[in-house]
């Protein structure tokens, strides 16, 4: 589904990703772990098309389509969803209005008709209820005044409503207490389906207690240095990155 080959990405003059290869098949959950500065967030931004992340070499395709040529919104239209590490606050835009606009933009991109306001409201309400979000929150401006946990829950509701085929979750678990972590895990697990792929980027193993990955990769210095099954995450937890001979600034 997602094929990344020899991806090199510069931020400013500095090369952050140095030839990354990664392949996700439909139905799989992959976890990418790695020390700070390894290039984890750069990978998520490069895949979702953020300005300032310059791909100098390599390819990334989603279902055979070249992602790197597309604008950020076109990639969303192709089914890419990025869960932000720090969701942005947008004063003055209600969550509901935001989702309505996003859903219809994506439908337009796919050549589908707009969803009626009633259907959309139903959809959003049901997803919010599944993820135990207070419906009042839908009226509030996007992420403004939300706690860290509420912001991440909001990301999960957005993900559920937009129903992407590739979800990239960039340290969505950072800074969360155990209850908030469970909400995030619940959101991810609900999305799991045979036709979807999920890429969980995390520094710590603890999210993986709740979202069991099919494959675990270790990213260090801009490359995947080791891949394995879920046991690799446990090994990392036990031995640290040092156990793999990788320096971890944060450890």
């Amino acid at each position, binding site marked *: 589904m997602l094929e990344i080959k020899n991806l090199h990405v510069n931020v400013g003059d500095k090369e952050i990703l140095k030839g990354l290869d990664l392949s996700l098949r439909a139905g799989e959950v992959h976890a990418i772990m790695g020390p700070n500065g390894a290039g984890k967030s750069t990978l998520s931004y490069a895949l979702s098309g*953020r*300005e*300032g992340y310059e791909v100098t070499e390599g390819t990334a395709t989603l279902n055979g389509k070249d992602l790197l040529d597309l*604008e950020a*919104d076109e990639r969303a239209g192709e089914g890419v969803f990025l869960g932000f590490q720090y969701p942005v606050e947008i004063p*003055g*835009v209600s969550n509901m209005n935001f989702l309505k606009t*996003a859903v219809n933009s994506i439908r337009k991109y796919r050549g589908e008709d707009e969803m009626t306001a009633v259907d959309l409201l139903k959809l959003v309400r049901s997803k919010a209820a599944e993820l135990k979000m207070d419906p009042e929150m839908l009226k509030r401006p996007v992420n403004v005044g939300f706690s860290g946990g509420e912001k991440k829950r909001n990301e999960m509701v957005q993900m559920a409503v937009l129903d992407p085929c590739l979800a990239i979750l960039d340290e969505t678990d950072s800074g969360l207490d155990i209850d908030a972590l469970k909400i995030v895990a619940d959101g991810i697990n609900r999305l799991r389906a045979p036709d979807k792929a999920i890429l969980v980027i995390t520094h710590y193993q603890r999210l993986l207690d709740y979202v069991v990955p099919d494959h675990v990769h270790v990213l260090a210095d801009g490359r995947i240095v080791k891949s394995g099954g879920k046991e690799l995450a446990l090994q990392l937890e036990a031995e640290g990155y040092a156990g793999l001979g990788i320096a971890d600034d944060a450890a």
Partner: protein
Amino acid sequence: MAKQIYYQNDGYQQAFASLADGLPGVPELRARAFADFMATGFPTQKVEEWKYSGLSALANAVFVPVKTTDRHAEAESFLAQSVPLEGAVQLVFVDGHFNTALSQAGDLEDGVTLTSLASALAAGDNRLEGRLKTNEQAQGRGLRSVNAALMTDGFVLEVAADTTVSRPIQVTYISTSAVVGHSTQLRNVISLGKNSQLRLLEQHIGVDTGTYWSNFVTDCTLGEDAVLERTVLQEEGAKAVYVAEGDVQLAARASLKAFWLTLGGQLSRQSQFLTFNGMEAEVALYGAYLGAEGQSHDMLTVMDHKVGHCNSDQIFRGVLDKGAKAAFQGRVIVAPDAQLTNANQANNNMLLDRSAEVNSKPELKIYADDVKCSHGSTVGELDKDMLFYLRSRGLDADAAEQLLVEAFIAEVLEEGLDAELLDFMQLRVRSWMASHTASPLTAEADGKERT
């Protein structure tokens, strides 16, 4: 004293001489006011309050009021654009004259008097003369003086003490093609008695085909505990010069909430002078201005806290697209002994294009110590992080820009308008954006690479 210049000095003199007989009532007042206009002329940009707006568009012709108008059908077609306001009493002015046929009078409570200025003047209402004051101290007062000299009509609205006007008063000013090359000179007088209440909605609509000049003066006095809610939607024609001035006097515990949505005109200027004369009065002013190619919007507020224990709040937001210009000048004055004054001003501006320009001058003059006064002013472009967030959720550059601009304006609309007007004004903003934004940002965002 800054030097004044005169536009078409002789032309106005001749016009005044030939018009004078046809204008309703108060000939001495008109003559005095006209002499003052001749002495002061139009304000130039050397006058501090007019630093950012030049009236050169008025220099090339003599813009005198039209005597009568016969564009009934045209006016009626414009009226379709007016705010559908449930149960409102409708006053319609066409080309500077009250139009009985298009207006819908309605039952008003006892104690409410609503007449056209022309008929009030023709009837020789003596009390009125004192209220048609000219402000002979103010710099740049020529516009008020020429209005007093040439005013053709307007409305006089008096609400007696303890009267709540249950139906909103809706006034629509229409400028048809008859007014191109001419001016409308309207004067409104509003006085609210003690403990009375009124909602007022005004809308300016105009023809796009040529230059005309709208010159409005609206003065309000608010008695003790009186409450006025005023909303003004300015959608003058694309080549119009719109100048409006208001003087508001507030007695103790009076309250004014006002909103200006400025979308039209080539040059628009709104000057509001507010004076607190009694304690515990409150003023909340809100405004949104959106400017496109060739438009210039200018807002001046002077908030004079003459006595203490009063609150004033101001929020003005602007969005300026390609070739547009705007200015906000807000002056808050706190007199000696006006203790426990709270005064805040916020002015936020968003520039959408390289050729847009904004000037902001929030000013404080404070002579009392136990006060809380603040102002904030910002200028910026669309937030890059927000844009990316929206685009990563699937919005294209146009949609993302539109949503953020709408949101930026929505915050002030929501603060300043009640639910009934909010939806309508949001629609006006949206339709303005649909017809005006050339969306140069889209090109920029698509072309990327602006690091």
